[in-house]
């Protein structure tokens, strides 16, 4: 318990003194996870909408695969992304292993199925007649898709939160493809792991608290937006 109090005190001290290193680590966490979330949103909403609206043989199998992907273990993603990005691997010429870019790629791989899965569910959850009605009013297919996505915006925001929450808190893939390099790829989660193994539990707790706060602030803003629009 004493340790926890020390950790909280340390977190306050680190935040209050605007510790440069902690600030940089926090900003990098945010940068990597937000970028990965944006990429996963574009890919996920597009493929999710397509998957929800199209009819083709093997669709159920595809949806099952996407739903399985929602629980993709980050270390598995980390391992495969590492193998692909190795210098002597297929994408080695890009020279991006142990860079923030590699972390963004790994995190986007983790978040995309989450966004896709939630998109499929939320589009399919719209009233079945809505599509017919929109088309009957003379909309083109593209316009129809836009309206459907708009109608599904509340659950889609939940998808955004789930995707972001999944990647900002993730450590396995980040440490494998990023390497926890000081001042370059060290993020809140990997720094927490390292400080724990160094026995600096107070700093580890402080970093965890900062991570939780960050996560909370982002989700709070997203939730405010979501709930304001809630149909009453």
């Amino acid at each position, binding site marked *: 318990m004493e340790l926890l109090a020390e950790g909280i005190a340390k977190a306050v001290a680190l935040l209050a003194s605007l510790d440069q290193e902690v600030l940089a680590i926090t900003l990098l966490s945010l*940068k990597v996870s*937000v970028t990965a979330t944006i990429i996963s949103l574009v890919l996920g909403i597009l493929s999710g909408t397509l998957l929800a609206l199209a009819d083709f043989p093997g669709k159920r199998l595809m949806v099952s695969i996407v739903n399985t992907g929602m629980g993709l273990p980050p270390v598995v993603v980390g391992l495969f992304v590492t193998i692909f990005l190795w210098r002597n691997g297929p994408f080695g010429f890009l020279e991006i292993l142990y860079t923030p870019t590699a972390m963004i790629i790994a995190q986007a791989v983790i978040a995309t199925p989450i966004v896709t899965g939630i998109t499929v569910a939320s589009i399919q959850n719209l009233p079945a007649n809505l599509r017919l009605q929109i088309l009957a009013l003379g909309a083109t297919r593209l316009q129809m898709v836009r309206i459907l996505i708009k109608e599904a915006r509340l659950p889609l925001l939940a998808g955004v939160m789930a995707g972001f929450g999944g990647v900002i808190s993730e450590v396995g893939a980040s440490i494998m493809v990023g*390497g*926890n390099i*000081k001042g370059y790829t060290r993020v809140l989660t990997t720094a927490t792991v390292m400080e724990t*193994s160094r026995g600096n539990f107070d700093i580890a707790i402080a970093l965890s608290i900062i991570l939780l706060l960050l996560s909370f602030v982002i989700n709070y803003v997203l939730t405010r937006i979501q709930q*304001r629009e809630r149909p009453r």
Partner: protein
Amino acid sequence: MKIWKQFSLLLAAVTACIAFGLPTPASAAPKSVILATTTSTQDSGLLDVLIPIFEKESGYFVKTIAVGSGQAMAMGKKGEADVLLVHSPDDEKKFMAEGFGVTRRLVMHNDFIIVGPASDPAKIRGAKTSADALKRIAQSGSLFLSRGDNSGTHAKEKKLWKTAGITPDGQKWYQQTGLGMGDTLNVAAEKKGYTLADRGTYLSIRKNLGLAILVEGDAKLLNVYHVIELNPAKWPKINAAGGKAFADFMVSRKVQELIGKFGVEKFGSPLFFPDAGKKPETLGL
């Protein structure tokens, strides 16, 4: 529509903040050197002192991947690292013999210690040799935590068990954590078990542990670090010049002095002893 406008405004704002608020070391990319090393050099904080100096002097950007000697050498064999700083002499010799490295130079040493709960249930305190201590642990069936991760420390531990004539694998009192040195010490402290640790990591995290040094000073417990430059003939993509620069840096007089001083202020004694240029025989190897 409002919701999406708000949402995209938010996204744009966040993205802008991040894009402008962060210096990106990657964009100004100086050539990078991948240093694969052991967890002990990172957990002790030594690299935090040395690497900024090297980066400033050489202009290279160092990517330190702290993984343990076994994985570091595996990275070297695949050409995924430019220089190694490791402490697993037998495996290193094999590594050199197989032609993966071009030079291997002695950098520093410290020593391994056997730590355990102060109550010392296996009564190993005062054991003359490490082999004797391990025998007592085995006979009393006291918990022993092994790293089990093919690190230099793990390799040393296996050798010590062999010397003691004991096969610990599969025994109930023998557990493998699969973690780095710092984490394994934390586990040992929590479970009140014994473990083999390098003195540097132990000293640097001692404050929260409650584990005592029970056996030390045996010549078999010496922990020697070498810096290995990798062979660009095997893997042309290696940054050989950067690797050589780092290796030269580690054995330079100035850095050797820094290594000898590291930790004195905080712990009263150095964590590592500089050895560059010495013959391994003088260390009793």
